[in-house]
């Protein structure tokens, strides 16, 4: 486990030292700020605080997905592109330690750049009342969604040779998983039940958005994270054949 932490720490330092980390963080906050202003604070001032908050998390879930894909693209694809993967592959380090180290570094970085957005929901306090539990639940949902998307991104990065390809692969997988829900509602039984339940967003995120924690949704996101990382580890192991 020390190797995981070692790799995560180096990667995190890489995020903090590279320009791209800050650019992604700044863009995310900027876009989020504008959308919060335009939609949540919007022209209609006679709304309940919970509605505003719910809309904030609704918007943020989209930002979260894009940011996760962008953060995770470099994780393994960049190492392969620059040849540094050999340093890890020739060391007594197991594949799961590499994948987990990479994943945790991006997760920590995602949390770091999400924290500054807390001022937005707190702004609601200026004119209204706010349930802090609702805020915490919304952020928990964002955290779970972000972790699932980062895991899928890590998988894309493990499969791809270049970062561009990694973005395309993970973006495609995430879009496909989101679209399972709308497609499921057009499909017949019994397939539709499965597709509706497997959708990445429509069924599982909105409860968090409105302040509800369902064990079902938590388990879903944890399971997606687990399976994506599991396949990423297998993909990395399979690389030793080529």
């Amino acid at each position, binding site marked *: 486990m*020390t*190797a995981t932490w*070692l*790799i995560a720490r*180096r990667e995190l330092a*890489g995020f903090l*030292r*590279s320009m791209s980390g800050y650019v992604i963080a700044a863009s995310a906050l900027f876009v989020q700020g504008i959308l919060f202003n335009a939609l949540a604070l919007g022209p209609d001032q006679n709304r309940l605080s919970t509605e505003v908050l719910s809309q904030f998390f609704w918007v943020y879930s989209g930002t979260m997905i894009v940011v996760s894909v962008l953060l995770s693209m470099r994780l393994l694809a960049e190492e392969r592109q*620059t*040849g*540094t*993967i*050999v*340093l*890890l*592959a*020739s*060391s*007594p*380090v*197991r594949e799961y330690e590499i994948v987990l180290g990479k994943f945790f570094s991006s997760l920590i970085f995602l949390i770091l750049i999400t924290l500054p957005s807390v001022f937005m929901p707190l702004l609601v306090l200026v004119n209204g009342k706010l349930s802090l539990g609702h805020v915490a639940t919304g952020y928990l949902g964002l955290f779970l969604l972000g972790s699932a998307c980062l895991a899928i991104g890590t998988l894309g990065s493990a499969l791809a040779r270049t970062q561009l390809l990694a973005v395309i692969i993970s973006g495609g997988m995430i879009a496909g998983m989101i679209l399972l829900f709308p497609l499921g509602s057009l499909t017949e039984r019994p397939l539709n039940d499965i597709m509706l339940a497997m959708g990445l967003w429509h069924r599982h995120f909105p409860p968090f958005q409105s302040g509800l924690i369902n064990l079902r949704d938590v388990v879903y996101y944890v399971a997606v994270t687990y399976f994506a990382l599991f396949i990423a580890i297998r993909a990395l192991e399979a690389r*030793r*054949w*080529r």
Partner: protein
Amino acid sequence: MIEVDKLTKYFGERAAIRDLSFSIARGEVIGFLGLNGAGKTTTLRILGCLLLPSSGTVRVDGLEVTQNPYEIRRNIGFLPDMPPLYPEMTVGAYLAFAARLRKVPRQNVAAAVAYAEEKTALREVHGEVIGELSHGFRQRVGVAQAIVHKPALLILDEPSAGLDPAQIVEMRNMLRGLRGAHTVLISSHFLTEISQTCDRLLVIQAGELVGQGSEDELAMAMGRGSSLIEVEVKGQPNDLAAGLAAIPGVAKTRVVSTSESATTWELTANRDVRAQVARTVVTAGHDLLRLEQNERRLESIFMNLTQASPGGPQ
């Protein structure tokens, strides 16, 4: 220390290496010689447990690479053809990271980094960012990461690639400095470098081992004399050819060039016959202008081995 038996690796339909067998003793410095695409890198990557073989066995210290890759990697230092460097890190931080990855205990990391920096003459750039170093320095950082944990086996894939002549000499001296501390495997197509640094050469062509042994053993296996001698004599002494051919040990004479002023012969001999050649020329009453043993001997052995059909002299 290393036992390779019938090692074969396929990439799709194409065999990168076929039925490769050799063994390496502890402390040996081995040169792995071959043209680009001959299968050197593939073999080294398998020995470094980066790649799995299609068939055959590779044992490092009695451990099988497919069964115990994790244990083997603890004792291996690997430098790929492109050094695996993180450009944003400083040399010191990078080496410390490499040492920790190779399970050097935390309290020994500083000493390990100091050892690697001393062996590779990197002290002065300890605090510098790798991305800003010259190519020669980066190559040395690559070697330093491979030795930082004092591995028993050191695998260096083309350590001199892309270096200028001065840096090649530096690298050669550095590699000599590693002798004794590690079993070293160096791949290269720089013949002169490899013959000066290594105890033994393995010549590989189209995925097969076409020759192994010291430079002299390879020359013997090629059925050639151990030396090629060039003699340049003033004028056109036509009577000299028979005299040169009659020197004991000379197998073949050949006129390389001839002009009004001088004639040059190339003699193939099974031992060093320079003294006899000089005497023959002078006693025949001619002026000896130049007499030299061919410096490019290894190159010709190499060309001969790699041009011969696979499965040639061993």
